[in-house]
């Protein structure tokens, strides 16, 4: 097998597998070899399910040889965030509390991916329970960004992002409760989408009303394919919208004449780093070049939505851990223990206020989207995880300024590659936000951008090579 085969897209791999140019065993073996050789530097994976993956690869190859293969993802290895339950594979959430937990079930979208033939190669790293500052005393060490391992990988789906960027797997699944898929997608030159709330089921995981199980991959088409498999059009909140989504058929239709909203005041108020501002401006010019009309829009309620989302995250974190925090405090990391207690100091009134804001701002955003097909923002105002986590600068959480409001409102939002920071070598993302259940528009915009930018063809520097300037 070519050394670069695993760097191909999911769709290219599916075609190569169908044409018998490569076997699933070869793909999975190459993934395992790469992880063994390089993951000590990045810590993308908490658990690698090598034996199970190889057995499933052989089964996929046998199914294909029988001539009865049907799954869109048959034999393709993927990574899954270690907070998402996976049947038969240890699921720790990078916590000592769950260090030995092997679920007997898959979360619903993982079952759908496996039903389409995807092979869960392993479980990817995160900060403990996705709700703590990472430390080297965690069950799995702090994830490093393979574009420049001097920097921590942004999270919380940090391992999923770096597993794809490092070429360990062609796609991975994260969760996104405030930006935790879009932010690592942006910082790893990937496409990552948080779908409309309710489109992707959460059965077998939890009942969060702001977090989504979310795919990320190198290309827009791959991400669209993954979401079309994960989506549950018969789900409680999405069944009113009817048929299963077919994002791929409209992907190449272009965006000429589309009106796209730019919330200028929101963006200016967030204080972008210069390199983010430069990449964002270049993306706006590219969108104009594609025939889109950019219009300035107001987005009222964003500050409140961001704060309300934070209230809900805290309430949920405490609610999930109230018993364990008292019974097994020693099994929490120092940071996780503190963060999970915070929600204990919120009232029912606080949570009801957050819910009221959710309904009102959802309407306001939907009204704004009646006049434009999508809204464009940077994914993060800062490039590095370190800038986002600097306590003395009071910047912690500031990187979710554009992402978290749309967790609260439930609107679909996707990060697409937008260039690189020349000072760090780290990628920068741009976020596209669409009307409820209009993921297709986001994929169409992303695909148009992909064709003119070519960022998706960029790969990480060879391990140990110096970071290139001006990528």
């Amino acid at each position, binding site marked *: 097998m070519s050394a670069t085969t695993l760097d191909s897209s999911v769709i290219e791999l599916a075609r190569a597998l169908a044409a018998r140019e490569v076997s699933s065993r070869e793909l999975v073996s190459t993934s395992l070899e790469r992880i063994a050789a390089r993951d000590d530097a990045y810590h993308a994976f908490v658990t690698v399910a090598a034996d199970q993956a190889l057995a499933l690869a052989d089964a996929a190859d046998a199914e294909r040889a029988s001539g009865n293969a049907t799954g869109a993802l048959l034999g393709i290895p993927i990574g899954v965030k270690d907070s998402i339950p996976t049947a038969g594979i240890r699921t720790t959430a990078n916590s000592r509390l769950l260090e030995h937990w092997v679920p007997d079930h898959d979360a619903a979208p993982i079952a759908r991916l496996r039903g389409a033939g995807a092979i869960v190669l392993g479980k990817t790293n995160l900060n403990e329970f996705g709700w703590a500052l990472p430390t080297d005393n965690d069950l799995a060490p702090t994830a490093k960004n393979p574009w420049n391992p001097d920097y921590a990988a942004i999270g919380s789906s940090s391992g999923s992002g770096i597993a794809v960027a490092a070429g360990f797997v062609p796609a991975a699944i994260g969760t996104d409760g405030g930006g935790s898929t879009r932010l690592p997608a942006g910082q790893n030159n990937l496409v990552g989408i948080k779908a409309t709330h309710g489109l992707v089921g959460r059965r077998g995981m939890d009942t969060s009303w702001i977090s989504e199980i979310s795919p990320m991959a190198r290309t827009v088409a791959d991400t669209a394919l993954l979401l079309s498999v994960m989506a549950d059009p018969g789900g409680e909140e999405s069944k009113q919208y009817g048929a299963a989504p077919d994002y791929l058929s409209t992907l190449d239709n272009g965006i000429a004449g589309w009106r796209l909203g730019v919330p200028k005041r929101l963006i200016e108020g967030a204080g972008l780093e210069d390199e983010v501002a430069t990449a964002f401006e270049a993306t706006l010019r590219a969108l104009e070049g594609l025939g889109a009309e950019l219009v300035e829009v*107001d987005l009222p*309620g964003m500050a409140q939505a961001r704060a309300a989302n934070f209230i809900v995250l805290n309430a949920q974190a405490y609610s999930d851990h109230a018993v364990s925090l008292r019974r097994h405090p020693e099994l929490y990391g120092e940071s996780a223990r503190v963060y999970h207690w915070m929600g204990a100091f919120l009232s029912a009134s606080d949570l009801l206020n957050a819910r009221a*804001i959710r309904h009102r701002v959802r309407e306001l955003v939907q009204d704004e989207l009646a006049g434009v097909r999508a809204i464009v923002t940077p994914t993060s105002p800062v490039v590095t995880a370190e800038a986002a986590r600097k306590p003395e600068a009071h910047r912690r*959480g*500031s990187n979710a300024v554009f992402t978290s409001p749309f967790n609260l409102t439930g609107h679909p939002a996707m990060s697409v590659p937008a260039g690189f920071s020349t000072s760090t070598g780290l990628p920068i993302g741009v976020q596209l936000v669409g009307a409820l259940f209009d993921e297709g528009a986001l994929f169409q915009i992303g695909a148009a951008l992909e064709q003119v930018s070519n960022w998706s063809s960029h790969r990480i520097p060879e391990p140990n090579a110096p970071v290139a300037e001006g990528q």
Partner: protein
Amino acid sequence: MAERLDVDRDVWERLYPMVRDLRELADGLARLMPELHQEIPVTALVDAPGVPAE
């Protein structure tokens, strides 16, 4: 409060400043409920210490 909730003393010392910020945030949110139709600076409520990343 810490004793009533059974929070360990060492945790409480780290937790208290963050809880204070969280309460300010929640109370500020309640005050700004009527202002939802206006565009206020997005950093107005959350740029406080104690807000975890991502």
